[in-house]
């Protein structure tokens, strides 16, 4: 329901009475169906489910108020679309259109559970009726993502009824800007965008920088392959980002903020736009917020999708209307950033953490995590893992628990090989280090990094040289080309990697890659270039034998690089059907009826047609 919010709020007391009103209104809703319309679920048709539930609620002649609402990403994307029914928090997974009527009849009206739509633990076969019982959620600690899956991101009333903007009211009515920064400092919050710089230190430098005009920026230019943490926060709980920015602006002394969000995130843009306009309507953005002397407003800037625009100086250049290219940071952006003014830039997740810190205090926040990495971190868990999705875990948890307990391990009985963290600037961590704790410094020690939260799990069939090649190619395409080492160096590295994966590697190539990696790290202009070699360095560090196999033996141990492994026919599995024989373009396969076929290796061009066409999986890669 959309409640009229006629007047602007002119004091913290106004906000409190609004919270009470909304909570009362909400309490009249007896039953509620929450449909996830996060990107993953929406792609599986959850929008239609939402419409069907709305229709059902409207047509229902029950004597209680029934509401259907769309909510942001629940995180359990693997099992989407997710539908949760209140009361009881009954979680249904992989819901399809025909299930709507049954859920409505049985659970919403009848209070009974539809067993077949519950999550079943593959290990125990036990059904879980609510999120807390599912291993995927049990290990998580959701602070930033707490509102996701519960509130409708398109209605400010929901956020306010949930206590939203209370931190802002608290900050501007009872805390000085310095006290706000002190709390963030005690919390030990570090930048969630990848760098891990202390947020309070950044804020303080910006506050102390000379100049009356200061800017705050939210970096929503999430671009790591496979990452969707910030996207889900912006889509699922945009007000938490806005509130964080408001508090930061108050602490720093800024009147204008910008959210730089990539245009490929249309839903994030839409929800942020709605959120900003709703906040403005009731006076939470604009002049004299809550009757104080603090004024602040936010503009949205849509990015064109260049990866490098996630780099702060490139982002600011883009925001100024210039090409998104970085500049040297010898003078920090907190002194001279956007339009040459002191500018404080934080990532989406960093901002979204701020209201929680103010609400519950820095000590509370610092109670979670390790010595130097506090709070929680959101990861997008993807790749060869059973439970793909968005997870929020306390810092200090081991990678093993994330991948095995939350992620459910590697599917199809295959074994784990490595996990790539930190996106293209990060590195691959092998099985022997799975017990490392998730912590900015620990991951860096292993040659990877926290990054913004991409986590790609890879199984035994993954060729690590190809992984390095993939990220190098990605970065080479995304390099802006401004500086020599990044533009030319990445091209040289890609050239070498191309040779290695096509069987033309030479002795000394690995050393050459090492030399180039060192050159990039030392001389590139921005962090994109300086860290670009990390995927290569970390794969060499942990999987040197695979490089050597490619170069010395002309063999790809994971059998992914075409031409670097042979095809053979498993005589026992072969049914002598003749399909491979017929399809082989170079007549390299011989065999007769009832006699297992054989590949003539001298003739075979390693094209893989036999492997693709064999109905009995009798073709082996060796």
């Amino acid at each position, binding site marked *: 329901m959309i409640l009229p919010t006629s007047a602007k709020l002119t004091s913290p007391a106004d906000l409190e009475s609004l919270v009470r009103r909304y909570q009362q209104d909400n309490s009249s809703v007896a039953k509620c169906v929450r449909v996830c319309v996060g990107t993953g679920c929406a792609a599986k048709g959850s929008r239609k489910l939402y419409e069907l539930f709305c229709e059902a609620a409207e047509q229902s002649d029950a004597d209680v108020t029934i509401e259907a609402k769309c909510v942001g990403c629940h995180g359990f994307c693997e099992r989407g679309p997710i539908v949760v029914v209140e009361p009881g928090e009954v979680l249904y997974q992989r819901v399809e259109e025909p299930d709507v009527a049954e859920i409505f009849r049985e659970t919403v009206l009848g209070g009974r559970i539809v067993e077949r739509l519950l999550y079943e633990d593959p290990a125990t076969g036990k059904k879980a009726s609510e999120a807390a019982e599912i291993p995927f959620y049990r290990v998580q600690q959701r602070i930033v993502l707490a509102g996701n899956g519960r509130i409708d991101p398109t209605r400010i009333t929901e956020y306010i009824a949930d206590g939203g903007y209370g931190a802002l009211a608290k900050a501007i009515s009872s805390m000085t800007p310095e006290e706000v920064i002190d709390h963030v400092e005690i919390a030990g919050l570090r930048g969630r965008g990848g760098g891990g710089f202390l947020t309070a230190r950044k804020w303080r430098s910006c506050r102390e920088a000379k100049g009356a005009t200061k800017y705050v920026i939210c970096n929503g230019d999430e671009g790591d392959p496979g990452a969707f943490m910030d996207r889900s926060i912006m889509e699922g709980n945009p007000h938490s980002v806005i509130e964080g920015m408001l508090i930061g602006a108050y602490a720093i002394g800024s009147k204008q903020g910008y959210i730089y969000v990539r245009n490929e995130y249309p839903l994030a843009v839409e929800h942020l736009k709605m959120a900003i306009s709703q906040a403005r309507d009731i006076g939470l953005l604009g002049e004299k917020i809550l009757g104080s002397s603090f004024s602040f407003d936010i503009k949205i800037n849509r990015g064109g999708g260049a990866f490098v625009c996630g780099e702060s100086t490139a982002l600011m250049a883009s925001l100024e209307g210039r090409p998104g290219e970085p500049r040297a940071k010898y003078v920090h952006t907190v002194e001279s950033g956007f339009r040459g003014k002191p500018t404080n830039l934080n990532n989406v997740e960093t901002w979204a953490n701020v209201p929680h810190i103010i609400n519950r205090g820095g000590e509370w926040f610092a109670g979670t995590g390790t010595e130097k990495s506090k709070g929680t971190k959101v990861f997008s868990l993807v790749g060869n893992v059973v439970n793909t999705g968005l997870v929020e875990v306390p810092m200090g948890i081991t990678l093993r628990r994330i991948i095995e307990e939350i992620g459910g391990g590697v599917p199809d009985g295959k074994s784990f090989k490595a996990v790539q963290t930190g996106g293209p600037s990060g590195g691959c961590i092998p099985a022997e280090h799975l017990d490392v704790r998730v912590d900015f410094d620990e991951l860096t020690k292993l040659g990877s990094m926290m990054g913004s939260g991409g986590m790609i799990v890879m199984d035994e069939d993954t060729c690590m040289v190809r992984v390095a090649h993939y990220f190098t190619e990605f970065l080479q395409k995304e390099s802006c*080309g401004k500086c020599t080492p990044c533009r030319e160096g990445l091209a040289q590295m*890609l*050239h070498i990697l191309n040779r290695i994966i096509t069987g033309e590697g030479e002795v000394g190539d690995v050393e050459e890659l090492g030399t180039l990696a060192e050159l990039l790290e030392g*001389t590139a202009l921005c962090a994109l270039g300086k860290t670009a070699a990390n995927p290569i360095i970390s794969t060499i560090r942990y999987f040197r034998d695979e490089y050597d196999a490619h170069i010395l033996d002309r063999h790809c141990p994971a059998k992914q690089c075409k031409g670097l492994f042979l095809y053979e026919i498993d005589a026992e599995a072969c049914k002598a059907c003749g399909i491979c024989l017929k399809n082989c373009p170079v007549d390299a396969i011989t065999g007769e009826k009832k006699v297992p076929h054989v590949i003539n290796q001298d003739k075979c061009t390693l094209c893989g047609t036999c492997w693709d066409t064999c109905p009995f999986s009798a073709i082996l890669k060796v």
Partner: protein
Amino acid sequence: MRNMLGYVPLLRNLEGVEGDNQVPTVTIDGKKVRVKKNATVLDAAKRAGIWIPTLCYHPSVSSEASCRLCMVELDRGEWRQLVTACNYPVRRDIVVYAYSEAAVRARRGVMELLLARAPESEELKALAAKMGIERTSYPTVTESQRSCILCGLCVSVCEQMIGQAAIGFAGRGVQRTVAAPFRLPAEDCIGCGACAAVCPVGTIKIRMHPDSNEIEISPFKSRFKLRLCEQCNSPIVSEKVAANALGKLDANNEELREILRLCPSCRSLRTAGQLAAMPGYDQE
């Protein structure tokens, strides 16, 4: 900081701790020089007589530090950091190593990458030789437009000094090139040739076409009629440069306008004639 007599020495500003009047000391390869606050390490190196190779640096335009050739090592106490000398601002006393092993290795690496990109450029080879680099160990894997190393000086000078911004960067990464919009003859080009003058690798050339009295800025395809000297008929500048310059002049200053219609040698002859005609000139 008072001396024995009790008054503050005049040098106070030079050693002060506040304001932009400070003169920090840069110790570069053991040599101490003092520079104004916010001067660059390159300024300090010049003052110390220490040569650091540069390509994308030009004193007339802002330093983009894109070529990365001027890497030096900055002493951070516990560790050392490679920085670009051309734009690292000196804000306090610092210690820099221009010829440490890491700095030399970094500059060599960058130069070898550039040589791989533009193996034909004589200017680049000469600079490399001056650095003691005879060849590159890398193959040529990126395509350059006539040895262009994308230092960006031409783009900067056109925008910042000439005020035309006729050329800019197009494309990203290895596809990056310097070009006029749509790779057509640039509408905003006035044929001044400043880009060619600053180009460190000989990519941009001024071509004169005496048959048609035109100047061409190659490879940007822009061609302009040349203004001829009213006295000796030799070409002076492009008509557009002349129009541009005249447009900036006080409209009534006919004398200046007249001067601009002459080539430099005729102009100096004219000035000499005027001087000679001045009363009392021959008494000197």
